[in-house]
């Protein structure tokens, strides 16, 4: 919780509080295609494929691991 507060304060200091939109201007942001992960299954598939074939994983979230393929 301390980390959260710290990171949050940093962002407030960095001026994020002046960015963004009012709650009634979220029509576009609420669209399916504007979600950060549009297709959870496709994202999981890609994470798994690249985890198996490359030496890097994760970034977007937790690693995509859990297999003997690497």
């Amino acid at each position, binding site marked *: 919780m301390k980390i959260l507060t710290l990171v949050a304060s940093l962002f407030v200091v960095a001026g994020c509080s002046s960015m963004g939109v009012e709650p*009634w201007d979220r029509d576009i942001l609420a669209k399916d295609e504007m979600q950060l992960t549009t297709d959870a299954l496709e994202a*999981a598939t890609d994470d798994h494929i690249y985890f198996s074939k490359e030496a*890097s994983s994760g970034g977007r979230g937790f690693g995509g691991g859990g297999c003997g393929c690497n």
Partner: protein
Amino acid sequence: MAATKGQSISVSLASATCALLGGVTPAAVQAQEEPGWDFNTSLLYYGEDADRVQDLSISVLATRTFMDDRALTMGLTVDALTGATPNGGQYQSVPQTFTSPSGNSVFTAPAGTLALDDSFRDTRVALSANWSQPFSRLYTFDVGMSASKEYDYMHLGANAKISRDFNQRNTTVSAGLAYAADSLNPVGGTPTPLTPMADVGDLGNRIGDQDKDVVDLVLGVTQVISRNLVVQANYSFSDSSGYLNDPYKIVSIVDAVTGDVVPRTPAPGLQGPSHEYVFESRPDQRTKHSLYGQAKYYMNGKVLDASYRYMTDDWDIDSHTVDLRFRWPVGEKAYLEPHLRYYTQTEANFYQVGLVDGAPLPLYASSDYRLGNFDGITAGLKYGWTTRNDNDMSVRLELYQQRGSIPADRLIGNQVGQFEYPDLDAVILQFSYRFGR
């Protein structure tokens, strides 16, 4: 004056609407979901060229949304894997015979071909469950579990994430922690690192089942910049410890002058390797750090999704990944989405083409092509459409290509003309069907 008055009326109306809706303002980016089930299903074919790995996979992700954005998500994936995989043995102009991982037979790679172990066949079943619970108006708590089982591998994992919205929900800060406890029980037993590949029936260098623990930490910030731009930045830390080798990968022992793999004769009356090989050895600890950034930008119905990841670890692997998707509407109910991904990594500090015969063995060595120096490119196209009963379907076709290299001054003798990186060409074909929303 009139404009100001008009604006203040719209503010009051919006507040009144929110109050009528029970005071629950939408989450940072995602709108409030109606309670109900949502099923996301897919059928995937992944196929590598030259009879290498083929995977046929089915997946279901079922989400039950409850009032107040509480949600339960359950996932199931079943993979059927077949095909051959490079075992790390060096490319040679003569045939090479290897003892299979089980230790009870041999297989031969013809002259002038990549050393492929074709005994690979597996079924993998993976399960996951996640519960998402908003609390105290601005917080969301997620907790999840995962498990998967293959013939020779088992994974058990748990994860938790807490998110808090700030700044009228335009900023979301999150912190997540995941722990995985995996166990390996390879066919024929786990080989002791850097011990020689032995004749058929000789399992003297095999040790029992091995474990691997992975701890992941992800800290992230999502920020709405404007009505059509949202960005995310994540820092991830990952620590793996335990048995981090691939138990089926070997390193060739090569002649100091010719660079050829040193020939060997199996014991009388026995089948065994035709050349000298040792099982790979990786450190029992790995620490990775990643920085990830993503932006989604809406332009008149089209959506650009761009992301970048930098990864560095204490095996000296650095990687850069750029991923671009562009969603282009086709009519009212369909879209096309081209996808380009570029990946590049440097090799692990213990990556070797082969180990020189007679020289002292290093502590760590691996010829696994995935730890080498290579670039990867993915190019694909997805077509998605909404069906007559308002469900979503999509099909995507992608081509994935890896091209590796090793500096010429690391090659000796005949390796200069002969060495070939186990380059990869793969096809990804996926059908998805989403219904129930």
